[in-house]
């Protein structure tokens, strides 16, 4: 079937199998390999991308469901060669080790900051609890998102 999806600001049209998962469309068809695939059961959350501005687990979204919608991935965070505050926060606070959950954590963290520019540590923990990290014990991810909250430009 034919789908047209706005991916990171660009319309992309492809003929895909109806059963194709969004994560596989992004990774295998568009070669956007920053988003990862970890469990198939919506438990691990390393596949989180945005669909129409909301974080979704792309292993349980069919590509067909994204037809006519916009999808944003980690590859779109850096703008004009400058790391976004959420990226800089993860670096400064050592919020990543193996890097596998990092894109999902950053997309989730940015979505939180977009709706709540000054979240508490508890609110951050609640926001990211749908993605599992095996390396960091979460502490530095919380700090990274706090760092981003303190360093991002908030629209007046």
């Amino acid at each position, binding site marked *: 079937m034919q789908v047209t999806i706005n991916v990171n600001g660009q319309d992309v049209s492809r003929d895909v199998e109806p059963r194709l998962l969004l994560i596989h469309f992004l990774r295998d068809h568009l070669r956007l390999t920053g988003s*990862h695939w970890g469990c198939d059961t919506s438990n691990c959350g390393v596949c989180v991308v945005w669909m129409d501005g909301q974080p979704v687990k792309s292993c349980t979204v069919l590509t067909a469901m994204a037809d006519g919608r916009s999808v944003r991935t980690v590859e779109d965070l850096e703008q004009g060669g400058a790391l976004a505050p959420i*990226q800089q926060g993860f*670096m400064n606070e050592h919020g990543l080790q193996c890097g596998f959950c990092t894109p999902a954590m950053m997309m989730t963290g940015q979505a939180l900051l977009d709706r709540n520019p000054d979240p508490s540590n508890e609110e951050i923990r609640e926001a990211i609890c749908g993605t599992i990290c*095996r390396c*960091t*014990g979460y502490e530095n991810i919380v700090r990274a998102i706090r760092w981003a909250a303190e360093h991002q430009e908030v629209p007046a």
Partner: protein
Amino acid sequence: MTVTEVPTSAGGNPIGFGRMLRKEDARFLRGQGNYVDDIDMPGMLHGAILRSPVAHAIIKSIDTSAAEAHPKVKAVITGAVLETLGLAWVPTLSYDTAAVLATDKVRFQGQEVAFVIAEDKYSARDALELIDVDYEILQPVVDAKRALDPGAPVIRTDKEGKTDNHIFDWEAGDAAKCDAAFAKADVIVTQDMLYPRTHPSPMETCGAVALMDKVTGQLTIWCTSQAPHAHRTVYALVAGLPEHKIRVVSRDIGGGFGNKVGIYSGYVLAIVGSIVTGKPVKWVEDRSEHLMSTAFARDYHMHGEIAATKDGKILGVRVDVLADHGCFNGTAQPTKFPAGFFHIFTGSYDYEAAHCKVTGVYTNKAPGGVAYACSFRITEAVYLVERLVDCLAAEMKIDPAELRLKNLLRAEQFPYTTPTGWEYDSGDYAPALREAMRIAGYDELRAEQRARRERRAAGDTTEPLMGIGISFFTEGVGAGPRKHMDILGLGMADGAELRVHPTGKAQLRLSCMSQGQGHQTTFAQIVAQELGIPPEDIEVLQGDTDNTPFGLGTYGSRSTPVSGGAAAIVARRVRDKARIIAAVALECSPDDLEWELGRWQVKGDPEKGKTIQEIAMLSHSSLELPDGVEGHLDGTCVYDPPNLTYPFGAYICVTDVDAGTGEVKVRRFIAVDDCGPRINPMIVEGQVHGGLADGVGMALMQVIAFDEEGNNLGGSFMDYLLPTSMECPSWELGMTVTPSPHHPLGVKGVGESATVGSPPAVVNSVLDAIQVRHADMPLTPAQVWRAMQGNSFRTDLAIT
């Protein structure tokens, strides 16, 4: 050895030890990591594995014709095909054999039965459904405690003359001396405990891409390997492939934790698939495959005893272990140690005697046992002794901190030889425990706990039960030395190569392989410290066997103790050579020169000198060097560590337990680690954080159990629960610094310390809250509630 003032480079980084942001982050933050599943190649095919739905069955027939007829299928490989290649059965790391694809029988649920290669991964999965396997179901051996029963089904019927499920008996320590110590004890406490089967579950599953170039005979395998050099040699030994034509490449690895040490059937099948099809073949397993078939950890049924005098002096410990190794003995550990380093179970205390006996058995479960940041089973050892000490404290009504302080090894006893023969290199234990108690506010916590208990006794049941748990651990990390430690005959020593280019920029080549530990950063810092080259000018290369020196890889927290030693020594060799070159250029004797970070200068005339960058260029110039000194500024080293390093730490966990539901909330966790000087404190703290989360997971959530038919009850993340941000508290860290006397940098490994040390702190805390002597992990709400009713259950079987 202590960290002193470190100069800063033009890039803002410490030229040596200190907090430095990670070099590797640049690619991960942009979604530009290079994991194995990110590989795409022209003509690449995709493999998928058909797995056994049952735990124990005879394979009567396999019909692959419908799968082969699928329009997108290129090949179907079965055990029968592998038999023709001599690859159906391969040696394991423990000198047993294991099936790559089942031929005669399947022996665990999830075992590999057939491999389909197709044009795309969806078609490969579709074709699995078309394979028809006729199984004759056999009774499985699920309960390790029944594995040696007379009449138990024999799992390894492939082994000629095998009539039972026994693998090995092994013991350590002095049984007679231990009996004598127990004979004079006033108090003996006995406790059975299970360290249940758990699974490391890195977020990236295992995978490989294999490409056999038929023209050159070159085989390249990109895979998730923590030990690429060892893999290459094993492929050569097992498959008879010429080792100089094999290239193993580990790119970025999405977490390993010991799970990615061994060679899995999928890797071998990708290789065979490429040989058969002539195309690159990718195989990446899904989460259920990963949980059901790759290396698990622990599964130790332990019967422990601890003896003490009436004033709380511990005299001895003994333990009898039943070790469930699954259906193939495939544990990854040094050859001489069938129970890993379990016999370090004497832990951190000073006593007369100790003895352990371990019996390994086969069961109808996936093979493994040594994985998951366990330092070759020191995890089980620490859990045993730390639980026994708490049981003793409860029995004697002594505060568990006081009992530990009374019995901890003292600084003047180091280097210390344990009753089972391990030589601890250095330690100063009591200050670490006191520091943890200080951070925790231990006395105040106990006062709060007393007050709560009084309120509850007075009828106020609104508050949760409060527990305070302590653990003290001694780790042993950085295997070898190679005279004592090898894997399949390969001594556990590691190489390093350093090339300083003419302009003074350097490349360090290592045999170890990061899975997230930040090697590109910390190893650059080591060279920076030794040579004064800014860390941003040092590139660290690892993971590609074609451009790195041989070594055994990264697991058992061995990168810093072993490869870190290699990096320091190779840098010092280069520095020594630089001295000779500088002396020629300065027209003086090398003895007239002194080293000031990054520069050889004339003693008493520091204006005269040459920087390491200048010397690098001189080493390539027309400068005439003394006889025997070759040009260029390069060096090599193979580091054979003289001993393990022994990091240690004191942990305190505070929990709140809902008495009505059994739900546990970890309120606080205090971790004081001593791993010697810290190369990059930020990275060390990150390593500790991750291990503490592991401890919370293992103590409270994670278990791979089996029902009576051998069905894996932890085969997806819906059943196998890992801690999220909600289960983890904000970690409170502290440190003491006791350098290793034998390591060139004084450093010890730290990657596994927290995973090893934290589970008993959590368990001790929960049991302290509910005032129960013992219940096995994981302390799920059901288990805690049942324990409070005096009816805790076995966590390795279906709950009854």
